[in-house]
């Protein structure tokens, strides 16, 4: 029997609660409740396992209810080392269940493609008890036949990018199936966070995925402020919002340039490369670091913006808007570029919902999904940025949604800076309460960032879960390639531009 979603404990984004408040249930109910909730339009934001008393494993699920702006918390204590997989009924769970299998040797029975997503040793010895495979050693889905050939790319690539392995099953130039194997960037960050927060924690957060420094650090700080009940000054809320949107503009600009580069269209590539640097320099103007390191801190921000620097930022914003309109306008106005973008790597809205895509990749399919609107926290509770959606779900859609978001972010920053509140920029953070659980969601430039923390009896982290938006979207990339030309893969890949280290952690 599934538990109705209205009966499951819910709280808003950035809140904390006692662990005992979360809804516990039997394993079968747990699985059915998730399946039922997802059918009703909820999403799996996190699904992970933690060790429980007596060597058992507790499965936690964080479901996002966008329509009601709440997150649902539910858990189950597993009796054995196996349970019935929910992936066959709920494809969103696919990657999460593989991760649970990899980390805790808990087998989701009936999972259609069960294998680890990384190559590290499991956190505990399960029933199989076998040592984990060598790095890069994995079974791949294969298509048999004389005319089918396999193309393996990576983990060492010809460009300077992160390592990942891609297996294409091809028929001539057409791709039947693409399988993506990651895990080469695994650092064990989540385990290092246990026992925190300490002086290192915030630096781990800043480097979870280097291009999402602000996004991840913001998610962490809001989580910590929820756990400790710290109030953040208004000025800090504004500065955090400005930094988050600057990060979005910088990365989206870089992506649009790279998309142009992948089809060999040089003008936009060159201009966007330069303009991205200008945006990063705006972040550096605020905090001295182009990626915003040191800016977001628990309790507020590490740096203040005075009147002079605010005026400088506003000036640069005007120049930026003008330059970008020209550089990106070239892209939409050249038919040779549009011929490459349109119809390439299209994902339908139903598939996008089923896979649980997030961020621009989801919005390009027409899914209205944006944490800044659905479950706003911080400055976004007071100022709503309109959700930018596309309809086509192809490379053009993902590119154009980025352009819409850039324009709206520029407008947001301008308005926020003009009305920059006075006062202090940082409150002294209090200590986190004991035995609590908190969930924090932030719309990073790639999509929904989810951080979940559980504290022990002393208020230290007993468990910390990070779900990077890439975790939701990697399968979307593989899916988008079906029936496409293999030569269009780099273009599709760039239109998603997912993080490897954010996924591997």
């Amino acid at each position: 029997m599934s538990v109705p979603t209205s009966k499951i404990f819910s709280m808003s984004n950035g809140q904390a609660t006692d662990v005992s408040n979360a809804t516990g249930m039997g394993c079968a109910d747990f699985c059915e409740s998730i399946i039922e909730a997802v059918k009703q339009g909820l999403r799996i934001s996190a699904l992970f396992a933690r060790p429980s008393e007596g060597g058992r494993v507790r499965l936690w699920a964080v479901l996002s209810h966008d329509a009601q702006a709440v997150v649902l918390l539910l858990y189950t204590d597993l009796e054995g080392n196996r349970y019935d997989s929910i992936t066959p009924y709920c494809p969103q769970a696919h990657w999460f269940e593989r991760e649970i299998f990899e980390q805790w040797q808990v087998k989701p029975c009936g999972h259609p493609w069960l294998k680890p997503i990384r190559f590290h040793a499991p956190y505990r010895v399960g029933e199989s008890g076998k040592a984990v495979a060598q790095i890069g050693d994995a079974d791949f889905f294969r298509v048999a036949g004389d005319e089918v050939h396999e193309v393996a790319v990576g983990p060492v690539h010809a460009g300077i990018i992160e390592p990942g392995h891609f297996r294409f099953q091809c028929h001539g130039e057409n791709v039947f199936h693409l399988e993506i194997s990651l895990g080469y960037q695994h650092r064990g960050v989540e385990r290092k966070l246990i026992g925190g927060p300490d002086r290192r924690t915030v630096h781990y957060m800043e480097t979870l995925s280097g291009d999402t420094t602000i996004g991840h650090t913001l998610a962490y700080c809001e989580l910590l402020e929820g756990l400790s009940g710290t109030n953040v000054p208004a000025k800090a809320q504004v500065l955090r919002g400005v930094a988050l949107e600057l990060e979005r503009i910088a990365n989206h600009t870089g992506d649009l340039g790279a998309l142009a580069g992948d089809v060999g269209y040089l003008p936009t590539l060159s201009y966007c490369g330069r303009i991205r640097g200008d945006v990063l320099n705006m972040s550096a103007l605020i905090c001295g670091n182009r990626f915003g390191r040191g800016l977001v801190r628990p309790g507020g921000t590490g740096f203040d913006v005075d009147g002079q620097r605010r005026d400088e930022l506003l000036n640069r914003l005007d120049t930026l808007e003008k330059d970008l309109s020209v550089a990106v306008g070239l892209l939409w106005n050249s038919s040779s570029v549009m011929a490459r973008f349109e119809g390439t790597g299209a994902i339908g809205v139903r598939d996008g919902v089923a896979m649980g895509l997030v961020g621009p990749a989801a919005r390009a399919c027409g899914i209205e999904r944006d944490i800044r609107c659905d479950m706003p926290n911080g400055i976004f509770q007071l100022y709503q940025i309109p959700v930018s959606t596309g309809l086509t779900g192809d490379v053009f859609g993902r590119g154009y949604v980025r352009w819409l978001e850039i324009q709206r972010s520029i407008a947001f920053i301008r308005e926020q800076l003009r009305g920059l509140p006075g006062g202090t920029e940082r409150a002294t953070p209090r200590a986190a309460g004991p035995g609590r659980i908190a969930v924090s969601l932030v719309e990073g430039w790639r999509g929904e960032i989810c951080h979940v923390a559980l504290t022990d009896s002393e208020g230290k982290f007993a468990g910390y879960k990070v779900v990077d938006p890439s975790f939701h979207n990697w399968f979307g990339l593989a899916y988008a390639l079906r029936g496409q030309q293999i030569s269009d893969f780099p273009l599709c890949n760039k239109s998603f531009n997912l993080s490897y280290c954010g996924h591997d952690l």
Partner: protein
Amino acid sequence: MNYGRLALPVLALALAPLLPGIINRTKAVVAGRDGQPLLQLYYDLAKLVRKGGVYSRTTSWVFRAGPVVGLVSAVAVLTVLPLGGASAPVSFPGDLILMAYLLGLMRFFTVIAALDTGSAFEGMGASREVQFSALAEPVLLMALATIWLAGRNPASPVHGFLFSLSAMYSRLSLATWVRSGPALLMVAGSLLVVFLAENSRVPFDDPNTHLELTMIHEVMVLDHSGPDFAMILYGASLKLWALGALLAGLLVPVRTGNTWLDAGAVILGLFVLAVLTGVIESAMARLRLTRVPQLLVSAGFLSTFALALILWS
């Protein structure tokens, strides 16, 4: 054989690596960058010949033969290549077929050297190269046939001995352009397509890309290194020169009778062509791979129409 004419191939050998430099410099200027030096390819070649080669254990002599045969074929092409009114050192009826097949031989060895590595990427690149060049070759021959027809004297009967590149190009004068300008313009258009496609330029291929899955020519030479790679780069620049000279010789109808003046005009035309190539690469994106054959076939139709136009005019 006129030994003075040997100057043409020597000039080509010396100046060909300048063309990629001009193209890259143009792209840089359009993009607002400073760009690499004009003589970058010379520096690269000098660097590469001083290096050692790296050979995979799975490759055979075929892999090593590829670059050598490629370069020798390209040099051989230069011996029958006129520069507009300036005739080549060697010319005989049908030498244009020899030229087409020397280019074919060069391609064939590049392709089997690529296949010899057993790499999936190189196999893909080889398959694309062969597919596209099979479509580009008829366009080239059709275009040359049209040029030959345009240059013949309508009053006199067809002379077989005129069916050589040098003879064809020396008969192309301003008068020919006045007589059958539209047809020659169409031929020039189709030759431009062949020039861009065969030299793996945008919109057919992107010489700058590092993405293995989208490359055509560059992916086939991924495993070559050191002097072998120098031979490939040099051979490619000679090919660029040769196909460019066919186009520039058509578009620059300077026929003074003075070899040096005629050749100089065409070389100037070649440099302008390199600038034009840079502008094209700056102004448009690459075609989707499935569209490449369509454009090549269109170029084929263009030159066929030009041929028909001249036959029935």
